[in-house]
């Protein structure tokens, strides 16, 4: 056992040295010696670093817009999906299995299809054209709500089913109304619902197909991180595209950590 461990340490040392050497080659800017793949990654990291430390105003604007659109969509989707998921856990009705199957199927719907449907509905020649919402952040929010509501509802339903099994006898015994049951489960299962919301956030912030179609990727209006990445990739500027990708990952990590930190302070404080 010990020997195998030694060998592993030796191997990882070796890998590390190798990696550092390669990294040096790349950082010194010699593309040929370190391979295209590594080169692009390093250039991407450099671009991300440059964008962040210079407080690039366009990057800030785009990132903030990404966050705004996604958080708004997340709020709306959660308000729909969480009570729905809980209701499906608590209430038995005739088409319950059918509704659950539909929700699970909608989870797999390609975002581009959602985008197309929302486009057709919001187009000026479509049924909701009079509201003039196409190519606005609102249209992107609508598309994201459609994309993440089934996901959040499905995860919420799973979590709420377990909690309902735990609470069932007590809540029946206390003669609760249906609304009271749903509210109790949502409140006491809020940590699980937070996980569902974070999954929805992850899906929405990284989504590009639908918001490209309904938002139009208009500079200063509907350009967000993901559509900017698609644009830069299209232009062949892989370094900038990767840099924006790293910024996106960074934002997702920060949001996740922030929300977990919030829920932890609450746990220590209140129960």
């Amino acid at each position, binding site marked *: 056992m010990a020997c195998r461990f030694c060998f592993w340490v030796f191997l990882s040392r070796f890998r590390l040295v190798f990696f550092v050497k390669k990294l040096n080659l790349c950082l010194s800017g010699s593309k040929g010696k370190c391979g295209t793949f590594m080169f692009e990654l390093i250039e991407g990291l450099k671009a991300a670093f440059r964008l962040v430390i210079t407080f690039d105003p366009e990057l800030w604007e785009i990132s903030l817009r990404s966050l705004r659109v996604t958080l708004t969509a997340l709020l709306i989707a959660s308000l729909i999906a969480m009570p729905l998921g809980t209701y499906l856990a608590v209430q038995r009705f005739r088409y319950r299995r059918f509704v659950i199957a539909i929700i699970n199927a909608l989870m797999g719907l390609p975002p581009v299809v959602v985008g197309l449907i929302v486009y057709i509905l919001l187009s000026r020649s479509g049924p909701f054209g009079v509201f003039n919402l196409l190519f*606005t952040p609102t249209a992107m929010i609508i598309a994201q709500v459609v994309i993440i509501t089934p996901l959040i509802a499905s995860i919420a339903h799973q979590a709420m089913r377990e909690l309902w099994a735990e609470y069932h006898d007590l809540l029946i015994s206390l003669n609760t109304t249906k609304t009271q049951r749903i509210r109790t489960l949502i409140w006491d299962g809020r940590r699980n619902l937070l996980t569902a919301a974070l999954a929805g956030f992850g899906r929405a912030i990284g989504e590009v197909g639908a918001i490209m179609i309904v938002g139009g990727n208009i500079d200063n*209006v509907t350009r967000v991180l993901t559509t900017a990445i698609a644009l830069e990739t299209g232009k*062949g500027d892989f370094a900038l595209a990767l840099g924006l990708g790293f910024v996106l990952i960074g934002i997702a990590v920060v949001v996740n950590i922030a929300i977990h930190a*919030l829920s932890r302070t609450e746990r220590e404080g209140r129960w």
Partner: protein
Amino acid sequence: MKQILPAIFALFLAQPGAADGMRMAVTTSFDNSGLSDVLLPVIREDTGIDVQLLVVGTGQALRLGEAGDVDAVLVHSRAAEEAFVAAGHGTHRREIMYNDFVLIGPADDPASIADAQTAAEALLRIAAAQAAFVSRGDDSGTHKAELNIWTDAGLDTETFGAWYRPVGAGMGAALNTASAMQAYVVSDRASWLNFGNTDGLAMLFSGDPALFNQYAYLPVNPAKNAAIKHQEATALEAWLTSPRAADLINGYTINGETLFVFNASPE
């Protein structure tokens, strides 16, 4: 948490509201050239119009105009444009400028197209060598131009083997693919000059008038719906055909190369 979370949300929530400014659908090749970055600020300064660009393929640009979702269209595919106007979707077609298409391929030029006399001859050599060829395959203006040259060469792309690869993607993506596969590809000059990932590719053939690429401006028919900003579209047309636009367009260069030639006729 009860107090903090809504506060955070309130900070970030998007303010809804319809966009202002006029919308113009343009082709990917126009936007990739970088010319829009030069023109748009000056347009805003001169006319006060905030032009919002929707960068899509020619096919989608015309669809957006047809649906009345944009106020004007700037594309480069003559037949499709004329059909658009004939169908009553646009008020008229106004030529603005042209650039040209170029043939890109592996630097070692396996099909030896560099010394061909015409574009059609170059493509004939590629077909004869069955060298890998990436086609946009997305019904864009560039795609249509490419198909026209194949027709000039007397060939039908339907009959081609696996060496002919329609990728169904934008110019940048098609160039990326060509770079990865070391394939030939038809590109507009601007996209090529602005393209970052030129690994092993080179411009091999250009200059044949058959490769000229005329851009035209089409205001969308205001009868479609009340939201169409026809006044702005008309003002923009006036600006795009003005001497000021001519100077900016003719003066736009990348690596010292002129990309566009202004050719709008005064009214």
